[in-house]
C-alpha cells in the first residue's frame, strides 16, 4: 500500500482506508478507570459510535486508533510502545483524560511518566477528568474530520 506521505502529512489516500470504519483499541496505562468506564459508556447504544463505524477491535493488529487512558506509568510505557509498534500503518493515538494528556493529578509521582506524548506520538488530546462519553465521541469525530482535510498528525511515523 504505497501512500504518498509527504513530509509527514497524511494524504487523502491514507484517510480513505479508515474513513468509514476506524476501529478502536483501548489501553489503560495506569488510569483510575474513570476514563475507561466513560470509553465503555461511549460504546453503548445511548451514544452509539457505530454510526461512525467506530467499534472496539478484537486485537491490536486490527486497530486503527489507539485510545490511551491513564498517566503512563514507567512499567506500562514499554507495553504502550510495543502496542504502538504492533499497530498496522495508518495509526493514530487519542489521549483521553487529564492523566493521559499531561499526567493530571499524578504528574509529580515517582513511577509516572505524566502524559502519553512522552511514550507515543499523540494525534488528539481530550481533556477532562473523566471526559464525558460525548466528549470522547467529539474527539474521534474531530480526528476523522482532520484526517479528511489532510492536516492531521502523521499516521505512520514517517515510514510508509
Amino acid at each position, binding site marked *: 500500500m504505497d501512500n504518498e506521505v509527504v513530509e509527514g502529512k497524511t494524504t487523502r489516500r491514507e484517510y480513505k482506508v479508515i474513513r468509514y470504519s476506524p476501529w478502536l483499541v483501548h489501553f489503560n496505562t*495506569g488510569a483510575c478507570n474513570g476514563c475507561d468506564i466513560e470509553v*465503555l*459508556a461511549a460504546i*453503548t447504544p445511548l451514544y452509539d459510535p457505530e454510526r461512525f463505524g467506530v467499534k472496539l477491535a478484537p486485537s491490536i493488529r486490527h486497530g486503527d486508533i489507539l485510545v490511551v487512558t491513564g498517566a503512563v*506509568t514507567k512499567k506500562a510505557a514499554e507495553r504502550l510502545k510495543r502496542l504502538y509498534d504492533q499497530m498496522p500503518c495508518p495509526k493514530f493515538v487519542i489521549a483521553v483524560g487529564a492523566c493521559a494528556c499531561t499526567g493530571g493529578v499524578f504528574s509529580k*509521582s515517582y513511577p509516572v511518566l505524566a502524559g502519553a506524548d512522552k511514550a507515543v506520538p499523540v494525534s488528539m488530546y481530550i481533556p477532562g477528568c473523566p471526559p464525558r462519553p460525548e466528549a470522547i465521541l467529539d474527539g474521534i469525530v474531530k480526528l476523522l474530520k482532520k484526517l479528511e482535510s489532510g492536516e492531521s498528525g502523521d499516521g505512520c511515523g514517517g515510514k510508509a
Partner: protein
Amino acid sequence: MAVTKIIEVPFTLEIPVGPQHPALHEPVLLKAYADGEEIVKVDINTGYNHRGIEKLCEKNSFYRDIFIVGRVCGICNAVHANAYVRALEAILDVTPNNRARYLRVLAMELERIHSHMLINAVMAENIGFEALFMNIMLDREKVMKAKEIVTGARVMADYMMVGGVRRDIDDVKRDKLRKLISELRPRVEYYRKVFEEDETILKRLIDVGRLKPVDVTSHGLLGPVARASGVKIDTRASDRYDAYNEIPFDVVTRNEGDSWARMMVRWDEVLEAINMVEYILEKLPSDGNPVPDEKKLPRKFPLGEAYTRVEAQRGELIYYVMSDGKGMNPYRVKIRTPSFNNIINTGFMYIGHTIPDLPVILTSLDPCISCMERVTVVDLEKNIVYKVSLKELGGGKWGSRRYSI
C-alpha cells in the same frame, strides 16, 4: 525394533492474559499455566497501575489530597473521598450536620448502584452476552444522570469536604432524582430475574470459583465476595458511620459461594441501595447548610492519627491518616482497598477450572485494578500429583521456566 517406551510430554502452556485484553479494561497480567484446558497455576502480575499515591499524598497538603484520593479509583471515588474526609474530621473533631451526612450517603449509594450494574454488565459481556451488556449499560445511564444532578459530574464526584459536602440539592433536583430512580427500579428487577433464570448464565456461572467461608476469612476476602459465601460482614452495619444508623437497610448474604451467588448478591444490593436512595429523598433533614465555607477551614492539623473504615462497592475500604502536627501535609496516608485482598489473595481459586472460566472468576471478584495496583503473588498451588512428573515440573519449582511450543 519394538517400541519399548513412550514418553508423554504434556507441556504446561503459559497463556498471558496480558495487560491489554478486550475482557480486562485495566492493565493486569494474568499468566495462566494450563495443562490442556485445566489451569495448574496463575501468576497475577500487577504494577502497571501503580501511581505511588501514598507517597504523593505525603507531598501534598491535606486538602489537595481529598482530590488526589478521589482519583485512586474512578468507580469508587466518592467512597474513597468519604473515608479520607472522615479521617480528617476525626483528627479535627469536626462533625458535619445531619443534612450533609444524608447527602453523603446519597452520593455513595448512587455510586454503589452504578458500580454493581457495571460489573454485572461486564460479566455478561465476558460470557459473550452482548445484548444483555448493551441493555444494562443503557439503563445505567439513568444512574449516571442522577449522579450528575447530585454531584455535578458523571463519574468523578468531588463531593466530600471536611465538615460536609460541596453542593446542596433543592426541590427541582429532588424531583428529577425521584423520577429517574422510579424508572430504574423495574429495569433492575427485570435484569435480576434474567440473571436468575437464563440458561446460558446459569450454565457458565454456577459452581465456578466456589468459596468456603473458612477460605474467605483466612484469606481476608471482603464485600460481596465474602457475603456470597455466608460470611456476614458489612462496614455499614458495624461502623454505622454518616447516616447509616438512621437509614433502614439489611445486609444481603447468600450461602452458595460461587460466581453466580456473587452476582446475585450484587443485584440484591442494588435493590437495597435504590430503597435507601428513595428513603433519603423523602426524609432529607433540613437542619442548616450542608456546604462548609471552604475559605475558613483550618490549615494546620493537630497531632493525631485516625483509622476509618467505609463499605466500598467491593468491600471494606480502610484509610489510615496520621498527622505529625507540624506541617500542612499528612505524615502518612495508608489506603487499603478491598480489591487489594480480593484479587491478590485469591490465586488459589483458579486451580482446577478451565481456561474460559478464568475471566469469569476474575470478573466475579469485581477486579478494580486501579485500587489494587500492588503486588505480584504466586499462588500456593496444591501439589496434586497427576499423570507424569512433568506436570509438577510445569506447575512447581520450574514454574518460571518458559516452555515454547
